[in-house]
Every structure is written in C-alpha cells, then in structure tokens.
C-alpha cells in the first residue's frame, strides 16, 4: 500500500487537534539517522511512525557481488557495536555450507571476542542510556571501560570497531601474546567498576522514576512483534540463542540466561546490566583454558558453497542475528538475507510508546538500544 512519507516541514495540527511533529532524522536522542513522525495530543503520544532509509546502503545487494571471504567485512558495518558477532554469524553460515570443522582454539577465541564485544556494546549502551535520561557523567565512565576493550581488540585484531577478524574456517591471525594478561587486567578492573555503575545509575531514584513502568510490553506482544535479545528477555521470553541453539563452545559453558518479567524500561536495563556480569563470567571460564593448536582450518583458496540454502544464527548484543544464504553453487551468493535484531525491535516502538509522555519516548528508545545502520542495512 502506498504510504505518504514526505518530511513534514513544520508542526501541523490535524482536524482532531493532534499535533504532528518530527523527531529526527538528525536528533541526538535517536542515536543516528532515524526519523520518527509523532502524533501528539498535548504531551501524550498517540502514534509513533518510524521512517527509514536514511542510511540504507543495500548491504544485502552488495554482498551478492562479493565472494564468501569478502562479504564478511561488510557485515561489520551493520551493527557496528557488535561487529565481531555479525562476522561470526556469517562465518558460521559459510562453514555450515562448506562443512568446515573449526579448530577448538579458534572456537574459544571466537567466543572470547564475542563476549568482549558484548561487554563493550553494553557499556556504551549504558552510558548513552544514562545520557538520554539526563545524566552526563556515566557516559564518560562507560567510555573508560570500553576503551580498555578497544585497546585489546586493536592489539589482537588490528582495528577498534570494524575488525573483520572472523574468516571462514577460523580466525584471521592468532592472539597477541599480551592478550591473556590484558583481558585478566580488564576483568579485575571491570568487576569493581560495574558496582560503581550500579551505585551511580541503577539505584538512583530519578532514573527509577524515569524508567519503571515506562514502555511496558507484555510477553505475548513481545513474541508477536518478533522481539529478541534483551527487550524480549525483559518481558519474560526465553530467547537466548546461546542457550536454545548453542553454537561453538557455548554448550560447555556455565552461564545463566537473564530473564525479567516486568517488561518495562527498567527491566530491560536490568537485563543488560546482568548480562554484562554473565559475559564476564564466560570470559573468566575461557581465558585460562584456550586450547593449543591451529587457529584456522585448512580451506581452499576459492570458496564455493554447494547449491542450496543455509541459515545460521547468533546472539548479538541486541538480539538474534540471522544469516540466510541461497547458493547456486558459484563463488558468490545468489541471494543473502540478514535478519537484524534492531528492525523488529523498532516495530514494537509504537506499541510501547503509545499513551506515554514525549519525555518517556527517549527513555524507551534508550533501553531498546537502537543502532540505526543495523535497522536500515
């Protein structure tokens, strides 16, 4: 159905007295170029209509012209805060098609990197979320911890944000000799600092007033909107891919799937805070038990997937990330589809924000943790 999507130039009032305003495309609270057209009655939100496409780069189409080694780097540009995990999902899908056995060392390193990325992503989210609701200091404190992870990544992978470290068959280069020492230092540092996070924001009465009972979504609605990751787990849906469809070495690890039942913004906040501690415990289990051996399986120079359809999924910091490859037997995919967690989360924004105040919209968007390039691709 044709939908009118022109940008409204100035606030307009319709026949029933509702005001229609734009938030975005350039607005600090949207964390990117997201354009929301909001229908307001006074200060109460009646409707939120997201308009997409401002950062659409047609990554799926680009991948069709790239070989199976080359397309992985593009996926770092989708959810740039969990680029390792995106690359991981793509590498898993290609390995599934080629039936490559990944060496044990590569599997452990992959999981270690995934969990470090998850902590980095969640700390950035914590700072940005606190900044959205009006606290500026947490942003700087969060970046201090994130910088340590970025340094570790820079030393081992060579880049800070778009690493392209996972390749089909393993990882690109072996760990840096200082990796284990630096990660252990980080664990000690972060354990004391995450308690500071709780002191500063979690217990704060102003923060609680802004988030408790704001943007509630029930378990049934969370399932029907297709939410995954922390927003769904805050509503009581058990959907951690690491638990229900374990990949790599997650089967052997001891960790909990964090589930809250309130479904409001504060529950989503708590889920992410507890996930950081879980990720930390996963890293602690693995850091001393990295097996020796090859870091990359022997693969052919030119990868050719057999004819067929392949799907693999991983749990990113935002939810389920799925890669679907249709192969015709050539060196490039015939069709590739990415199931990104942000898109379905955004679809539920209207449901969550209806009836709340316009100031609450920012708090809701903060806890949903949007990364706009992930939504638009």
């Amino acid at each position, binding site marked *: 159905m044709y939908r009118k999507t022109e940008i409204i130039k100035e606030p307009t009032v319709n026949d029933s007295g509702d005001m229609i305003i734009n938030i975005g495309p350039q607005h600090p609270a949207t964390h990117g170029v997201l354009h929301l057209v909001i229908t307001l009655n006074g200060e109460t939100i009646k409707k939120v209509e997201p308009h997409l496409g401002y950062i659409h780069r047609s990554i799926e189409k680009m991948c069709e012209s*790239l070989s199976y*080694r*080359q*397309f992985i*780097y*593009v996926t770092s540009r989708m959810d740039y805060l969990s680029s390792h995990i995106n690359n991981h999902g793509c590498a898993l899908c290609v390995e599934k098609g080629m039936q490559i056995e990944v060496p044990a060392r590569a599997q452990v390193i992959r999981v270690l990197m995934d969990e470090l990325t998850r902590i980095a992503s969640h700390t950035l989210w914590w700072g940005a979320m606190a900044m959205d609701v009006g606290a500026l*200091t947490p942003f700087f*404190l969060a970046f*201090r911890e994130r*910088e340590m992870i970025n340094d570790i990544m*820079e*030393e*081992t*992978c*060579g*880049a800070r944000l*778009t690493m*392209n470290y996972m*390749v089909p068959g393993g990882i*690109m*280069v072996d760990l*840096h000799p200082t990796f284990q020492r630096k990660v252990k230092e980080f664990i000690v540092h972060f354990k004391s600092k995450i308690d*500071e996070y709780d*002191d*500063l*924001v979690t*217990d*704060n*009465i*102003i923060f609680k007033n802004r988030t408790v009972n704001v943007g509630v979504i029930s378990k049934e609605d969370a399932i029907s909107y297709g939410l995954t990751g922390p927003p769904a787990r805050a509503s009581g849906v058990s959907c951690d891919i690491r638990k229900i469809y374990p990949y790599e070495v997650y089967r052997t690890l001891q960790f909990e799937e964090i589930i809250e039942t309130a479904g409001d913004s504060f529950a989503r906040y708590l889920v992410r805070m507890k996930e950081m501690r879980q990720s930390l415990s996963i890293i602690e289990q693995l850091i001393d038990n990295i097996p020796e051996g090859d870091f990359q399986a022997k693969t052919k120079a030119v990868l050719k997937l057999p004819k067929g359809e392949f799907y693999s999924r991983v749990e990113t910091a935002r939810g389920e990330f799925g890669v679907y490859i249709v192969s015709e037997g050539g060196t490039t995919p015939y069709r590739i589809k990415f199931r990104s967690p942000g898109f379905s989360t955004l679809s539920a924004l209207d449901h969550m924000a209806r009836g709340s105040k316009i100031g609450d919209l920012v708090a809701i968007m903060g806890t949903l943790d949007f990364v706009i390039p992930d939504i638009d691709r």
Partner: protein
Amino acid sequence: MSFLGKYISNVFGAIRSLWKGMKLTGYYFTHHKEIITQQYPDNKDTLLLPERFRGEVVMPHDENNEHACTGCTACELACPNGTIKIITKFDIAPDGRKKKAIDTFVYHLELCTMCNLCIEACPTDAIKMAQTFEHSVFDRNELTKKLNKPGSRIREGIE
C-alpha cells in the same frame, strides 16, 4: 500508618540513592589520577599504535630499493572494493629471458576499508599494513598512491 511509613522510607531511600551517586562523582572530582583523557595532538610523539594496527597498505622496500612483489594480483582479486590495481610489465633478465614484474602498484586509499584481506592473500608478504592514521589531505588525487618506489626491482630469489 503503613502508607506513611512507606512514604517516609521512600523519601530516605531516595536521598540515600542520590548521596551514593554524588559520593562517586565527588570521588572522581577529587582524584585526578583516575582521569584517562589523552590530549591528542600534544601527545603525538609518544602515541604508539599496536604493530597490528591497520592504517594503510604499504610495500616495504629494503636498502637496495628492492621489494618482494611478483605481480601475481592475488591481492587485487582478494580486495572487495577494487582498491588495488596492479599494472604489470615484462623485464628482460640478463640471460635474455622475459620476466613478469610489476610496473605500477596503484592503491586507492579513499576506497580502502582496511579489512586486511589483501595482506592475508599475498603469498610473498610483499605488502603490509602501516600504523599511520592521519589520512586527510587537501586534494583527493593525493589519496591514489603508487606503492612501489621509482626504479625498484623485485628481490632476488622470490618467485
């Protein structure tokens, strides 16, 4: 009565939570050593980037102005963005044989995403990533680089 008690405990809980947060803020206000801000252009001389940092592709030459590139175009094929273009020529070896060699190794820095795939693909380790990161120039043409130095030859013994 229970309502009043709850109300008062709420008020004191609120004050305690604010005090806890402000105590932490005050701690960082008085402890300057915890600040990790680096003053970037001032610390340029002491700023060390890790050896694996991917800044731009360079081709190392030794003291005899010799490199290790055979012109096999493996990096050109591995590059997802068309960043590298190798123009080859035929050298006449002293014994009269024709030998394939590179004429120009064109590198488009403006197209490069530093994905490291060309370095991985290179069979002779002729190219590597440099630790530079300040790539801004005034003219766009300066970003198209020629990586082999003028008059350079392939090192002996590399096929």
